[in-house]
């Protein structure tokens, strides 16, 4: 006869001294955990609800400008700083952490329409309707900056006067060049008072310029004749162009996949293109109900933020057709510029109501130092939510966003319009000879032609 029974001595299963950690034991046997799936579902539901409860994206507003914000620029070398410029010619450097102006750059006579900083963060370039390009030396942040009682002012290091009002500027990622958009596209060097190179585009105005983050010689621009043009600085003519049905207000290259860019269009949609193949968009990002004014990619390249004339800011996944998030407040007016912070945690929007607003990129994210246990819990919650996201109860909670009444109504209206358009199209197709009417996908529908 052989016998063994379970016998546990207390010493083996408890800690020796009170300073020790408690001993824990695992047994992953499913039979010890009855109804584990129901429990997990319940956790997912709780996590979805908690996410809603903790969704407080608005961090604060930065006020100081006396006119609508027209453009912003990130300082690639300094996380806390952001430049903003307004319609009355005022340029400011803000400290995001304290949400105060650190420094002002006076000089522009009319509206400032373009703002960019060099990659090393030393030079700020601004341009405006007063037909001047101004270069500024950015004051280096130091410990003394913590004294906010006195706002410094900086004199421009160079002022270059040009023929036309300038509407856009962007600095090259590696190199000394920057491009401005006016009646033509001009390429400037820091040290020359005249552009080093100029491109004419069919007597039309260039309204936005953006250099490619991967290839320093490639830039995308959009013009007021509704076209998007890709230039190669090594060539004398534009490399390719896409003519669309509506104007493109702004362009952003995906920093992680630098061959792709997304265009913020006047029709309220964003169009993601592959820069090498422009006969159709890769993805159409719909949700805004009015013109999209500005767009900026997250440094991770997985998301981008858009600001729209419908007084809202939205965050889209780079490959998703609809936005993940919408931000709005009662007081926020038309959004003219948006930026994703360099650490992908915040979104900054500048609007017509003279304020810059700071938002969290993930509305319910916990800020500050997170303990490892908290981190684990967040990860677990994320995972269970992801697992049950298709179930109706959880889907409804996760997807729900409160919309301002005008946007809600406009969405309803546009849905009716789109439906009737689609119905009409279908009827036309069914009453025509087969093959004569082809319904184009939305990715191609808004493109009139493309030129190599």
């Amino acid at each position, binding site marked *: 006869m052989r*016998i063994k029974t*379970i*016998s546990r001595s207390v010493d083996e299963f408890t800690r020796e001294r009170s300073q020790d950690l408690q001993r*824990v*034991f695992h047994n992953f046997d499913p039979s010890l955990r009855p109804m584990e799936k129901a429990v997990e579902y319940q956790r997912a539901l709780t996590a979805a609800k908690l996410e809603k409860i903790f969704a407080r994206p608005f961090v604060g507003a930065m006020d100081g400008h006396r006119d609508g914000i027209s453009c912003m620029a990130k300082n690639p070398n300094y996380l806390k700083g952001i430049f903003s410029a307004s319609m009355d010619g005022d340029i400011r450097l803000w400290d995001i952490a304290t949400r105060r102006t650190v420094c002002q750059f006076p000089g522009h006579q009319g509206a400032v329409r373009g703002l960019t900083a060099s990659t090393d963060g030393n030079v700020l370039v601004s341009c405006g309707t007063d037909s001047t390009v101004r270069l500024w030396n950015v004051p280096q942040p130091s410990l003394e900056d913590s004294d906010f009682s006195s706002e410094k002012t900086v004199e421009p290091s160079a002022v270059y006067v040009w023929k036309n009002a300038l509407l856009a500027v962007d600095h090259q990622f590696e190199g000394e060049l920057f491009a401005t958009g006016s009646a033509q596209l001009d390429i400037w060097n820091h040290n020359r008072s005249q552009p080093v190179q100029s491109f004419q585009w069919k007597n039309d105005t260039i309204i936005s310029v953006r250099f490619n983050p991967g290839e320093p010689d490639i830039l995308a621009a959009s013009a007021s004749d509704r076209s998007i043009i890709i230039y190669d600085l090594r060539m004398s003519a534009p490399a390719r162009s896409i003519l669309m049905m509506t104007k493109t207000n702004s362009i952003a290259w995906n920093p992680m996949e630098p061959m792709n860019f997304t265009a913020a269009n006047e029709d309220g949609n964003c169009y993601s293109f592959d820069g090498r193949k422009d006969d159709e968009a890769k993805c159409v990002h719909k949700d805004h109900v009015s013109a999209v004014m500005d767009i900026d990619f997250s440094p991770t390249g997985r998301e981008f933020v858009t600001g729209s004339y419908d007084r809202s800011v939205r965050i889209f996944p780079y490959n998703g057709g609809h936005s993940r998030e919408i931000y709005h407040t009662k007081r926020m007016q038309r959004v003219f510029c948006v930026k994703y912070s360099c650490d992908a945690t915040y979104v900054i929007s500048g609007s017509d109501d003279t304020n810059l607003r700071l938002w969290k990129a993930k509305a319910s994210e916990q800020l500050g130092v997170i303990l490892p246990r908290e981190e684990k819990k967040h990860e677990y919650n994320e995972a269970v939510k992801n697992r049950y996201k298709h179930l109706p109860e959880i889907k409804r909670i996760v997807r729900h966003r409160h919309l301002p009444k005008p946007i809600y109504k406009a969405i309803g209206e546009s849905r009716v319009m789109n439906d009737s358009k689609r119905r009409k199209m279908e009827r036309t197709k069914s009453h025509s000879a087969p093959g004569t009417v082809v319904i184009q996908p939305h990715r191609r529908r808004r493109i009139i032609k493309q030129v190599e």
Partner: protein
Amino acid sequence: MEVALEDNNPMEKVLPPDEQEIDVELEAKEKKYLRGEGANLETLKDKKLKTQLASREKLYGKSAKAAAKIEKWLLPASAGYLETDGLEKTWRINQTDIAKEVDKLSTRNQYDIVLPDFGPYKLDFTASGRHMLAGGRKGHLALVDMMNMNLIKEIQVGETVRDVAFLHNDQFFAAAQKKYSYIYSRDGTELHCLKERGSVARLRFLKNHFLLASINKIGQLHYQDVTYGNMVASIRTGKGRTDVMEVNPYNGVVALGHSGGTVTMWKPTSQVPLVQMHCHPGPVSSVAFHPNGHLMATSGKERKVKIWDLRKFEEIQTIHGFHAKTLSFSQKGLLAAGTGSFVQVLGDSSGGGYSRYMSHSMVKGYQVEKVMFRPYEDVLGIGHSMGWSSILIPGSGEPNFDSWVANPFETSKQRREKEVHLLLDKLPPETIMLDPSKIGAMRPSRRKDKPTRGEIEAEKEVAIEAAKSVELKKKTKGRNKPSKRTKKKKELVENAKKTFPEQEHGNVAGQKRRIGEVAGAELPTSLKRFARKN
């Protein structure tokens, strides 16, 4: 590719036999952790979803493998056992023999507490097996810490106690007394008097749902949420008085055994039973559920114990010859049955059905009231008319506990933390259903695929063939004439054809269209453009 295969094959052969054995063992264990078959991804059309799910399935496989390895190598304790040599039989071994063989610590679990004045006793253990609650019929309630055999609190309520049950931990317990049931705290303070349910015969607590279920003397089943105190459901069973009630730990379904021999299963969200099984010709005296939820044991007054498969609702086994007043399954699947002064433990060691494993007879005259295995220990608690006893049943308990599920060595801080987590994970009453794995799954689309015309045709053909080949019986009195036989056969074929009416309808439509096409030739020229072209 072929070269690679050739390279792989000898590698597999090279594995030493013991390692192969381990592989087989690990695979069997892995299956348990996979929790069923993986999703069938072949039918999916969405490529993106397919790759996402494939990677997730891969992850499940990996974690199951890791869990299997942990079970094989890292768990601190192994299960108890009782093995015999030669002619020795396990059921002949009594507690004194066991006491000689096992270690000192285990022998402390063999004892009889004699309390002749308050008997018969009902027992309940907490989920971790650390605490025991004993309720004597004559009003004696005792809360005992089983680890150090310490009597935590003992009260005399001064009236009949019919049943006792722990709530989610050892801090609270409920007792069904003469007129009402009460909830007491660990130190014996009466916290609540539950008047709504009437005089309760049996109390059970559903741990995941925080529901206190009770059946009262007039056959009403009540579910009360102990966190908010609201009565979730009160159901009139309509089957008369019963004191046989058990909770299926797998899905939270409550089973009642009735005097008519039926066992009914209930959930709080429905007024009619989920299942009614006719189990015994006479009254059902007790019901017990296997912890994995697939087996149910019932015993009837006609001296039979039956084992049922709850997936098919079929009887698997009948054990003749004894009637059990009380039944209990252990964590490892042993079945204890108590009747009179005799306790029988049945085991399913070979997988071929339950058979005698151990037995224990108490002193003559003791009447066993309740048997219950202590979780995470090889111990069977027996409540009887003269107090309560505890005996060793090797191999009954789960040797390895999980600190986050039920920890016998829980500190008060851990207990408080656990309580919060339990409350956060509290399930709504709607999650009680026969198959809890359906929770969190999508309902398959209800629309059935319409059979195609070809399939209907083929089916019809088969039916007609079957009708033709029917062998007619030999009849008398002129009904066996060839004419009658052919007529009969024709009728059969016609009947077989009639079962496919849509098919006929479809044909008619087809004919109509054809007529239209033919007519198209004679249409006036203005209408000719509408005629179907082929």
